[in-house]
């Protein structure tokens, strides 16, 4: 097997100090590889967390921002957890995402985020449909033994818990609503769901779009104020 002539990156062409002021402590990396070992998508597209940290400390953003890999990162945070030097790798990944042109981020995320900003949820699901789905599943629940008196409260003021909703729960995984509803019911919890801006899956956070993230978080805060709930539950 012949090795192709390597193409060199000339050090003169790099500005190694480009990311010097990034606050993720990337320069203390020991290259121990624990992050890559923990990462569930390490090795895909020839990338791993350690390589990303390396490229950032070399100021080589052009070699990462356009790549697919920062977008298949699941943001699980295992890399950060195992890093012996305390480098905020997942945060760094988000900063890399933030550098990409908004019209160039993966399509599904673009659409979902646009929906969320326009309608308050990633699916652009109208309010009536949302409420209908919830009430429909709740009625199914009452047919189960011991749950005859189960009911959900939408937009209830003064509840103990206001919870956000992951859009899949009112789309492809409606059955999953029942699991945590049963727990709340058994605990005798006093909880509610907002009928507007109920979306918990913040793709503003996920795509590194701080402005969008603030808007979505702001809407949830408004819900809290409006409904005067005591605790916000945001399972994301």
């Amino acid at each position, binding site marked *: 097997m012949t090795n192709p002539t390597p193409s060199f990156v000339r*050090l*003169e062409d790099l500005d190694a100090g480009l990311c010097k002021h990034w606050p993720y402590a990337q320069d203390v990396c020991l290259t121990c590889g624990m992050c890559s070992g923990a990462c569930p998508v390490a090795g895909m597209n020839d990338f791993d967390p350690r390589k990303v940290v*390396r490229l950032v400390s070399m100021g080589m953003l052009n070699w990462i921002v356009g790549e697919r890999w920062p977008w298949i990162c699941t943001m699980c945070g295992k890399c950060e957890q195992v890093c012996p030097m305390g480098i905020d790798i997942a945060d760094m990944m988000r900063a890399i995402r933030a550098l990409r042109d908004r019209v160039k981020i993966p399509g599904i995320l673009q659409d979902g985020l646009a929906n969320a900003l326009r309608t308050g949820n990633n699916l652009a699901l109208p309010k009536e449909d949302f409420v209908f789905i919830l009430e429909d599943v709740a009625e199914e629940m009452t047919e189960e033994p011991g749950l005859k008196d189960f009911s959900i409260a939408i937009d209830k003021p003064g509840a103990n818990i206001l919870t956000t909703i992951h859009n899949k729960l009112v789309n492809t995984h409606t059955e999953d609503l029942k699991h945590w509803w049963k727990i709340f019911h058994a605990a005798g919890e006093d909880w509610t769901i907002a009928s507007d801006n109920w979306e918990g899956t913040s793709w503003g956070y996920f795509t590194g779009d701080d402005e969008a993230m603030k808007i979505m978080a702001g809407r949830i805060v408004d819900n809290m104020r409006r409904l005067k709930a005591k605790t916000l539950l945001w399972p994301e």
Partner: protein
Amino acid sequence: MTIYSETLVIGSGPCASHVADNLAEQGIGVTWVTGNVTDAVNTIALQPPARVNRVQGSALVGCQGQAGSFRIILDQGGVRTAHGVASIIVAEEALYLPNFSEYGLQASRRVVTLSAIEAKARDVALESLIPPEARVVFLNGWRRDSHPAIAARMLAFCLRLQKISTARTVFMTGNLKVSMDHMEACCQAAKAAGAIFVKFGDRVPRMAMLDDTRVQIDYHDETSGMDFRVSADLVIVDETVHAHPSLAGIAEILRLERDATGFLQADNVHRLSNSTNRRGVFVAGGSRAVAGAEQQKADAGQVALQVVEFLAGRDRESLRTVDIDQGRCARCLTCYRLCPYMAIDISPRMTVVAQACQSCGLCAAGCPNQAIRMSDAGVPEAIEALSRIEGNPARSVPFTPRLAIFGCNRSAALAREAAFALGHKLSAGVTFVEGLCGGSFSVNHLLKAFEADADGVLLLSCHEGNCHSGTGTSHARKRCAEAAKALSWAGVEPQRIHYGTLSASMGCEFVQVVDDFVTRIAALGPLTR
């Protein structure tokens, strides 16, 4: 015999200076010989403290006697003087040689050694030494790790350049071990200041010379998986730590062991801290490859403590007395040649000098006329005990061999204890004879065991290179071979005697070796008369 009080310190640099100071502080008189090294004058400018007699520009040219009573001869510009010292410390500096050949480079205005640029930077400002924005590449330990003291200096200079000048540094190293004081902090500070660190593991970078004499370095960065190319305006090459050329002569005069690279301690686990093969002779600093200013200072303090212990006679448990029976002694000088510790005085008569003796028993075992007795040694007695065993249960059916196992007290005896502590048992019929050293068993001892009805003899001693007396274990091997020859002349299978090595921690292996030997001897059957 006269016991002296002074200590001789040999060395031309800071380490010897620290040793002299430390000893003087302890109230010990020091004669400090700076050697015929010309830069000794530059490095030691200060007046030595009281109780230190510094003999500038002098060298050790002769030494007789043993610990406590060394008679040395110094040469100062052709004038020779005699002195008596109780102990000797060799604390000569190490030699730092540039590592150009490791990188396939030659010295030039763009390729310099660490020491050279450090020296220049002491005299002139960095700005005049390094062009603005220069790309400066540090080459540190490629195929072999650099000495930590050298790597520490490389890092410190890299940090200095990166922080104080406009230079853009790249630190290229095969490995980055930050074991010395402040190294890790230095490394992080250098990175924070913008130094680029490249650690390339197995794939060594390639060098090429550009037309304008700059050095082009192509390297593969394993972490990113990418190939990089850098054109260096200046390359700083690391150094290797070598034994000072004067050590060869000193070793010969003092009859000291040297390791493979010429430093004054054998690569032997028993040469702890600053000890050499001779009691009363110590080595410190660059003479035993300790480098780095703080490390040398610490070593100087450590050796001073050892000397204090030695002079107070507190450095060992008990002195066995070793007597040479003058009636039997033929002055063949065998013991003198055998003694690894130079503890035998030959005039006016053959005597073992107690202060220098380290109780190995090589002399007693080697004396052709058995003229040497060690108090408390026990080997002849143990062999006598072998023959006095009556109604031997080992002569049973099936045949259980009677074995004599000779073992040295630093290896086999301890391994045996370890085995017992772990709950192992040896087969019946095994008798253990403990000796001071593998070399303390003579051919006669081995053959006497057969005379005492042993069916097999096993001799176990320390691994080659790790024998406290240096040569004991190889004497043991040769004597087993001789005994085997004697056996075959007598019509006995030579396999009935076997030599092996092991260490004190090898309890399980000890049992294994004995069991294997029992099996082999059992197959041979009892020793027929």
